[in-house]
């Protein structure tokens, strides 16, 4: 039994199988919402209401011809998508999905919040390397834009995620979630931080208004310009899974996690992540892409100071509590 649980954890829930299935569902949910908000119908033909469309897209990409540019570093070019997907799936294992008690996750330890943030930053670096190794001008520009954006959103995201952790007095995801389940009213303290985190997550996922690195009308496909076939499918899957993990992280930190054991926990997980994805979709439908300089100045003029303000509020309230 002791061995079975980690295997179940890695392969079934919240590991690979669950992530693949749920992330494609989330992509469908996002696409459908986005389409309805734009007065379109969205995916319709594959499966009921087009629910299998993301799966069909990925299968189609796997069947397509896979081209590696002549001048590209073949090893790097091939390894990067797989590597990035593995990293994001690893990050998912740290989410406190089974219980909120001590035995929540067999790899849970004090400070795992930082690990998840770190693991979610690595794909960004891999996007840059992918762009750089593609030997294409558009990819190189896209890769540089990825890194430039990282300097904009990473600090506000960290500040926003740390505020609830400071209030809860722990940097362990299970304990943060448990704290807010015991004191639900204290969730309201972190409202500013919640919205900063959602906006920063949107930037991390490179979606409108922050789809600057692969702005198709400017630099074609950005860092993915030269990618095709299976490798592109890996990157697409990576984007979906990153969305699920990011939404899961925000709901664990800000919304009180997923209490109640396996099945109620799963229900909470789906409810809360879909809520976050709904917010992300609204943001995507309501805005236009901004320029890279506007993005950086927006992060440092608004997001970072607001993050510091959130931290101040938390410190003052914590001082009054004790």
């Amino acid at each position, binding site marked *: 039994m002791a061995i079975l649980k980690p295997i179940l954890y890695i392969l079934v829930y919240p590991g690979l199988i669950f992530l693949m299935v749920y992330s494609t569902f989330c992509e469908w949910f996002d696409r459908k919402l986005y389409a309805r908000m734009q007065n*379109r119908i969205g995916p319709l033909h594959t499966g009921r209401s087009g629910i299998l469309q993301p799966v069909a897209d990925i299968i189609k990409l796997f069947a397509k011809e896979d081209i590696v540019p002549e001048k590209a570093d073949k090893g790097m070019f091939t390894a990067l998508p797989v590597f990035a997907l593995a990293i994001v799936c690893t990050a998912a294992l740290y989410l406190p999905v089974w219980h909120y008690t001590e035995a929540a996750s067999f790899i849970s330890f004090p400070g795992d919040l930082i690990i998840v943030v770190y693991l979610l930053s690595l794909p960004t670096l891999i996007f840059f390397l992918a762009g750089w190794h593609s*030997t294409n001008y558009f990819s*190189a520009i896209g890769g540089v834009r990825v890194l430039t954006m990282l300097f904009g959103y990473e600090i506000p995201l960290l500040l926003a995620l740390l505020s609830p952790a400071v209030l809860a007095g722990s940097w362990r995801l299970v304990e943060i979630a448990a704290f807010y389940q015991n004191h639900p009213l204290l969730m309201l303290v972190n409202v500013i931080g919640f919205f900063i985190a959602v906006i920063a997550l949107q930037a991390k996922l490179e979606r409108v*208004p922050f789809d600057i690195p692969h*702005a198709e009308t*400017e630099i*074609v496909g950005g860092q993915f310009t030269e990618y095709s076939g299976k490798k592109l499918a890996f990157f697409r899957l990576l984007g979906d899974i990153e969305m699920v993990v990011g939404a899961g992280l925000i709901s664990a930190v800000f919304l009180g996690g997923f209490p109640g054991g396996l099945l109620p926990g799963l229900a909470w997980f789906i409810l809360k992540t879909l809520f976050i994805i709904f917010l992300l979709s609204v943001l995507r439908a*309501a805005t236009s892409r901004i320029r890279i300089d506007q993005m950086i100045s927006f992060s440092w003029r608004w997001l970072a100071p607001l993050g510091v303000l959130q931290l101040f509020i938390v410190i003052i309230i914590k001082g009054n509590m004790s």
Partner: protein
Amino acid sequence: MEYKVSLGPQHPALHEAVSIRMTLDGEVIRDADLKLGYSHRGIEKLAEERSYVQNIYLTERICGICSHSHTTCFTQGVEQLMELVPARRGLYIRTLIAELERVHSHLLWLGVAGQEAGFESFFMYTWRDREVVMDILEWISGNRVHYAMNIFGGVRRDIDELQKKKILDSLGLLKQRTDYYLNLAASEPTFIGRLAGVGMLSKEQAVALCAVGPTLRASGVPMDVRKDDPYAVYAEIPFEVCTADSCDVLGRAVVRVKELIQSYNMIEYLLKNLPEGPFKVKAPRKVKPNEVYSRYEAPRGENVHYIKSNGSDKPERLKVRAPTLANYPATIAMLKSGFIADIPLIFAAIDPCICCAERLVQMDNAYSGESRVLTFSQLRAMANERSTKVNTKKKDIAWPF
């Protein structure tokens, strides 16, 4: 480090084949140039081999958006050559179609601007509403894109009372939606952030570089053929020339939205004051030797047709100057100060129609004065010679990073 990137001839931001050659320094454009000639169709040569009536249908196919602009420009030129006075009711209907076409073209442009700026919702909304005006055009002419309404001496079809009522009903919806877009363009911060201050073209530059249409008017020059040199019935209908002083892409968008509102008022006026009588008169087949220079304010700017007749039923020469061609020099000036992210917006802001503007220029040798005529096989030999000079060996292509 400066490096050169070619945007196009195939690129997601470009809807037709054109190449923008840029010298970049990071995200900033240091230098820009345009390379044309990917979609030359030889329309002017074709026109010389067809009769005047056939040429109406040929000029309609110069452009897929301002098809009525080209036929009207051609038709009114030929009518002048024929010394023919078209039917008054026909002229009113011709003007009505012209304004409906302006509405459809400007709504299309708004959507394209949204798409180039990465604002997909705006694109979807404007193109949905564009269907309303497309339906109106279909009720009147039977076609959505190539209306084929013009004939010498008037128009092909009349408008009845039921159509009038239907059009006026649909106009209400369009007006309401346009007000909404005006509000949206004035209040959505990310959209304004992308458009304001981008692609600056001062008043002096705009005049010196011979810009036309909304590009010129957005730089504060109130120049409009409909007002300056009225054709059809524009001298009789009340309207204002819309301008903006901001000299940027936002100004060009504002000018177009204001023109939409002016067009709605004009359409209403035209329908309510439609004169009774015939909508076409009989035209002669042959045209006396003469030449004419016909001007027309297309949605994209001033459109010019030069027609020379030689007494037969075919024109000796037809020269078309589409508005996009006049706007190219200004585009290059605008591109030179921007970021990479601004290229699609600046280029789209002139509402380019690349096929319309492709012309073959045959240059005589300026030094010796000799000119030559090339056959197709000679041209092919020249092209082969040029392509063999291009270095295609793999090891010689350097990747600078």
